[in-house]
């Protein structure tokens, strides 16, 4: 079973498999997003305290969840690549980083636009928003490091070390920012302080989170295919030709 499993760990074997999986994940993402938006805008009731502006939650919270989840998955692939020395793992980690950074940006942007009608200001130095900003910096540092190192094997390994250090640091950073926040702001505003969240609101959020998850898988599989082609070009031109012409 394991030999079977590891045969997919070869980039050349994974390339066509990824290609077949992309439409499934892509269409699930689209359908789930439609369902989630329908629930979010037409089924979920108006919030008693925030009015209609709370509907940003259906993009904000899934994006924030995905931004953290993708960093974890990225660190997992990076660590696997470091320990097992499989080439595909490093490529997966590379493919995930831009998607994670995109979701982090979306979470920050929607958070700012939610803050304005809710708290009267675009930016609050709230523990969550601040941690999310630092998470964006971590993604940018990871991508900059991988970009700067020319040898892909070395870039993968160096990036893996950074991702692992980052993943240990994220809880510490979150804790420290929360500590700092309580010190400086007294009672801080909390983003998800919905006293009684209606079931339909929660359902819309979960469906949207699922859609974001499926999208992240589809787009990073597509990106890993491009990375495989780019990297195999220097190693196995005959294989690349057979894939491009297929």
């Amino acid at each position, binding site marked *: 079973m394991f030999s079977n499993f590891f045969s997919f760990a070869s980039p050349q074997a994974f390339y066509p498999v990824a290609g077949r999986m992309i439409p499934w994940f892509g269409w699930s993402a689209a359908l789930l997003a439609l369902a989630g938006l329908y629930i979010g805008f037409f089924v979920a009731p108006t919030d008693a305290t925030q009015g209609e502006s709370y509907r940003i939650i259906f993009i904000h919270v899934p994006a924030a969840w995905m931004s953290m989840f993708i960093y974890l998955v990225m660190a997992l692939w990076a660590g696997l690549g470091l320990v097992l020395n499989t080439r595909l793992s490093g490529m997966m980690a590379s493919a995930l980083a831009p998607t994670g950074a995109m979701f982090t940006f979306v979470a920050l942007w929607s958070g700012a636009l939610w803050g304005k009608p809710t708290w009267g200001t675009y930016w609050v130095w709230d523990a969550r928003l601040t941690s999310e900003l630092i998470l964006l910096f971590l993604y940018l540092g990871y991508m900059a490091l991988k970009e*700067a190192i020319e040898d892909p094997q070395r870039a993968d390994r160096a990036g893996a070390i950074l991702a692992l250090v980052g993943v240990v640091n994220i809880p510490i950073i979150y804790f420290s920012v929360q500590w700092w926040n309580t010190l400086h702001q007294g009672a801080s505003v909390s983003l998800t302080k919905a006293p009684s969240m209606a079931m339909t609101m929660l359902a819309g959020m979960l469906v949207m989170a699922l859609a974001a998850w499926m999208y992240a898988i589809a787009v990073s599989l597509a990106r890993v295919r491009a990375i495989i082609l780019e990297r195999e070009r220097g190693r196995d031109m005959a294989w690349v030709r057979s894939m491009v012409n297929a």
Partner: protein
Amino acid sequence: MTAAFAAVLRRDLLVALRRKGDALNVLIFFVIVASLFPLGTGAEPGQLRTMAAGVIWVGALLAALLSLPRLFAADLADGTLEQMLVSAQPLPAVVAAKVAAHWLSTGLPLALIAPVLGLQYGLPSDALLVLLGAVLLGTPVLSLVGAAGAALTLGVRGAGVLTGLLVLPLCVPALVFGAGALTASLSGLAPGPHLSLLGALLAVSLPLGLWAACAALRVALD
């Protein structure tokens, strides 16, 4: 292992002593940064006092960052680093010695001069002590995280700015707890919890930073 640690530590300190200018420049940079802030914000005493912690900590962070390229780059250029990697001495001991030497030649002077800058900002004497303690506890964290960052970017083009990009976000906890100790002391609260957290952070950074720096050096010189 202790022999390797001691030997590398002595060698690096000797190198630092012969090139006093490098360490001195870092200190001067720190003093200049901290002295520019009041010129930009105005020198109202109450405002200066609330700013002091942040300015001094960010200044120390930037100064430590400037000194990082020296950590491994010179040894890489003359081949010493490669010898250290292939030698029988355990790499963590060698890296720990280099980090210790870096702290002694930059972190410690930064910590010693920080209270003087605190005077510029009108801090009371007990706050100056807290500042000294916090910077003493916090700068080793900067050296450790910085060593990992310097090792990751070793020999990479644009290494200087890139190191900052990698290291600065990871230093947020040190900044929060370090500056927090001073702020707490100024507002009449006990700085103890902040200093304890800073110590805990150091305890976490020690194995993590050494591991990352060693692994990154092996990758860089593979």
